[in-house]
Structures are given as structure tokens and as C-alpha cells.
């Protein structure tokens, strides 16, 4: 099986600080891949380079056999990568449904078919009853699901999730985990997530990459990675001790 997404020696430097240092990994089609690490490890920078928000200083990103590093965010999305934002950014002044319609319009030119697709996605994410509500009046968990819906409506091959679990209560986390699992199982969608909530990582990820000071310190199955001494001392230490 060839990798759907491959990063080779990705690096990014900000005025003397090396945020991401020679990071390489491959994400296979159909898997759920997690990137974890303490604050400041370079996760968000790595994510931004994958999503086209930042151009890497060095290294190559390949998606479905095509180089995508340095492309603009919209070009990356058109190639089949959708993302969510760590701090949610729905279109506040539009209805929930119109938010998702805008995502659906990426692959559809007909309004009627885009609207039908948007409704199907809203149904799948339990947002159907809120479709006429303004996005600005949603609660945080609903906004997170709305962002997910909008991203899914673009029918991506790869979904990039930037700390979607942050700020959610455990029950809400479990709900989102179940939705993502189902999505991955039913549609075979490949997911890459950056996550702090280990509960979600352990439940979802088939493989995990651990970053620390911009470098890869471990990579592998989640059960193996959490027992890795380097990971425990740099990241899980406090949590594991308690």
C-alpha cells in the first residue's frame, strides 16, 4: 500500500527557533494518524505546513502522489484535504446549513445538489435540527461539529483535525470520537489529528507520531508509544505519574 500523505524531512524555522526539524512520516490511506506532543512541540506548525497555511523551509509533502508543499490553502483543499481549526472558525453570520452548503459547493456547481449534500452531512453529524440556526449562536461542541461538517462536505480524501477535542467535556469527546470512528469505518476516510486529549488519541489512532522541540521522538502504535521512556519523560510524565 502506498502512502496517501507523506512528509519528508519537513522543517520550519522562525527567526532562530526551529519549530519543526526534519520531520518525516507517512499516513496510509484509510488510517487514523495522530500527532501528539507537549505545548510548543511544533504540532501546529507541522499542521499548518500540511494544510498549506505555511510553506516549509525545507522538505517535501506529497499527497496522492503529488507534491503539495507550498500550495495555497484553497489549492490544498481542492486536491482533497480538508481541515478544521484549533480555534473554531465557522462563518458566524450564516445559518448552519449555509455554512455546510459552502463546503459542499467545492465539488458541486448545482445549488440544489450542494444543499442536498449539505443536509445529508448535517444529518450524519446530528446537526439537522439546528440547520436554520445562525452559526454564531451555537455552543462550542456544536460549532466543532459544524466545522467538521463543513470540512466533510468538501468530500476530502484526508481530514486534518487540529485539536478538535480541546475544550470539550468527556461525554462530548466520546461522542465526537464515535462520530470520527464511524466515519473512518464507513467511508474509509483517512484522518490525521493533532490532539492533546490522550483519551481520544488512544481510542482513535492506529499510529501516533510524538513531537518534542520540533523533532520526532517516537512513532508507532499508540500502546507502544505511551510506554516509550522518551515519551513518558518529555510529555506524558506528569500524567503517567499520577
Amino acid at each position: 500500500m502506498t502512502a496517501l500523505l507523506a512528509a519528508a524531512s519537513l522543517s520550519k524555522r522562525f527567526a532562530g527557533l526551529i519549530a519543526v526539524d526534519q520531520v518525516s512520516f507517512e499516513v496510509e490511506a484509510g488510517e487514523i494518524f495522530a500527532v501528539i506532543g507537549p505545548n510548543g512541540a511544533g504540532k501546529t506548525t507541522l499542521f499548518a505546513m500540511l494544510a498549506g497555511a505555511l510553506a516549509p523551509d525545507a522538505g517535501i509533502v506529497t499527497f496522492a502522489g503529488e507534491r503539495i508543499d507550498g500550495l495555497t490553502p484553497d489549492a490544498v483543499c481542492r486536491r482533497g484535504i480538508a481541515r478544521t481549526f484549533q480555534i473554531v472558525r465557522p462563518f458566524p453570520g450564516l445559518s448552519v446549513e449555509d455554512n455546510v452548503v459552502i463546503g459542499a459547493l467545492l465539488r458541486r456547481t448545482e445549488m440544489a445538489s450542494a444543499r442536498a449534500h449539505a443536509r445529508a452531512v448535517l444529518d450524519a453529524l446530528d446537526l439537522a435540527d439546528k440547520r436554520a440556526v445562525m452559526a454564531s449562536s451555537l455552543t462550542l461542541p456544536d460549532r466543532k461539529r459544524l466545522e467538521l461538517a463543513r470540512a466533510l462536505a468538501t468530500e476530502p480524501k484526508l481530514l486534518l483535525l487540529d485539536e478538535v477535542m480541546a475544550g470539550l467535556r468527556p461525554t462530548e469527546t466520546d461522542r465526537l470520537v464515535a462520530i470520527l470512528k464511524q466515519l473512518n469505518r464507513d467511508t474509509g476516510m483517512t484522518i490525521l489529528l493533532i490532539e492533546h486529549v490522550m483519551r481520544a488519541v488512544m481510542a482513535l489512532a492506529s499510529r501516533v507520531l510524538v513531537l518534542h522541540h520540533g523533532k520526532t521522538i517516537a512513532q508507532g502504535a499508540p500502546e507502544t508509544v505511551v510506554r516509550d521512556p522518551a515519551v513518558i519523560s518529555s510529555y506524558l510524565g506528569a500524567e503517567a505519574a499520577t
Partner: protein
Amino acid sequence: MIGLWRSVPTRGRIVIALALAVLVVLPLAADRYVLSVLTLIFYFAYVGQAWNLMMGYAGQLSLGHALYVGVGGYVAALLWLKLGIGPWLGVFAAVAAASAFGAAIGWLGFRFGIAGVYFALLTIAFAEFTRIGFDHLEVTGGAAGLFLPFEERRVGEWWNLRGGQLLFYYLALALASGAVLLVALMARSRLGYQWRAVREDEVAARAVGIDAFAAKMAAVVISSAMTAVGGVFYAFYYNNLFPSQVFEISRSIELILAPIVGGLGTVFGPVIGAFVLTPLGEALIAATARLGINAPGVKAVFYGVVLIVIISAMPGGVWPRLATLFGLKGRTP
């Protein structure tokens, strides 16, 4: 277009049909003055609609739309005066020239990330230096202005816009109605949704694959092209063009008041805004004349106070309030 009509609630359809019917037959009953005020209302509804596309839908603030009115007017007037090319043909040249200006401003602003108020400053700058340029341009008569002379033999040549009040009344009505239809269709189109996405959050819009640069360019080009048609109307209606009048920043401001008061990013906002503001201005002129108040600026002060009251009472615009009040809200299909 059938889908569009279906999305309008029954009550709204009745109001639209009635209003159009009344406006069409009104010249039978109304006098010249009333027709001239209505012509002005339609004109402001039309250019307000053009600005509304760019600001209300795509979220790009232009404070220099007088530039497109002026360029459109001057191009058509020059073609008529110097080459005898009538406005029906001249309008294409006018649109091409004004949208070239629009494209240039848009490209500079959007390519180099000049956004928000800085973009607005750029639009003002362009309008201002064009004004100064025209002040010194010999072929247009410079600061002394350009006049479209009254010619006896041309009277009644409606195809050359050489007609009376009635001709301009119907022309302005057609322009305003056409603009409402165009904006209604655009608002429901794919591009219309892309504009709203860019307006709401450009970063998020790009993340769902929208080429924000292309969407904004489309907005400024369409808006400037539409405004240029208004400029052609202006030139042939008033028969004179002065750089200090057409390119003035106060002209740009005047043009954006109707959509702001009526409701930004709504299909009927600019129309309602024009119907509120133009008669208000006329009434103030009449009232100050009747009361014998001659102090300069009195009218402007009253106008300003009324504007403040309306905007603070209905910050979302007059139209959304009316629509909710009378059950005229459109349905999403």
C-alpha cells in the same frame, strides 16, 4: 429564475407585483417633480445595489465608487460628443474602462493583502487622483466640465438617450429592477456563497477550497461594471460632468448610504434605503426653503441626525426589520 420566484413568499410576490405595476403606470398621474424624485430613487437603488454586491456580499469596503460613475459617464459622453457613438454602444466602452479601473484596484489590494479600511483608503486614493487627473485633462474640458448640448434635431431620439423625464424615469426603473434581479440571482449562486464565505472569514473560506482572490476580483469587477452603467445614465440625464462633482468623495459616500440604511447584504436593502433617503433629502430641501432657513449646512445637519436615528434604531437596516414585520422573509430552497 423560476426557483428564485418560488422562494419569495406569496405576500412578497404580491407586494413586488403591485409595486412594479404602480411604478409602471404612475407617470400617467404623477407630475414631473415626483417623477424626477423617483428617477433619483431608482438611480440610487441601482448604484447602491452595485456597491452592495461588493460590500454587502463580498465584504470588501469601497469608498471610491464615484470613480466608476465618473469614468463610465465620461467615457460614454466623450464617445457621443467626439465620435457620435450613441450611449447604447458607448456603455460597453464605459463598462470596460470602469471595470479595468476596478480590476486594477482589486488586484493591487487583494494581491498585496491590503484589506479592510486600508483597502477603503486605496479606493479613495484612486478616486481622488482620477479626479485630479480629469481636472487637468483637456479632452474632457478639465475642471470647466463637459457638457452634452441640447440639440433640437436630436429631441426624441430615445435610442441616444435624448429624451425627457419620462424616458429617464423608465430607464432608471428598468436599471433598478434589473439590478435587484441580478443581485437576487447572484446571491443564490455559487459565487454568491463564496462571497459570503469570504466576507465572514477569509481564512476559513480558503480552507474549504475557495479561491478568495478570484472571488474578490469577481466582486470588484462586476460591481464597477454595474456602477459604470449608472455613470452613463448620470451623464446623459444631467448632460454635464464636472470632475469636482462626479469624483468627489461625498459622491462615493452618498452612493453607499442607501444600502447601509436599507440593509447590507440583502436583496431589497438598497431599494428600501433609496426610498427612505432620497425623499428625506428632498423633503429637507423643501422644508428649509419653506421655513426660510438659509444657513449653509442646515440640511446636512438634519440629514445627519435622521441618519443617526435610523441606523441606531435599526442597525441591521430598515429592510430586514420590515421583512420580519410584514412576513416578507424569503425561504431558503
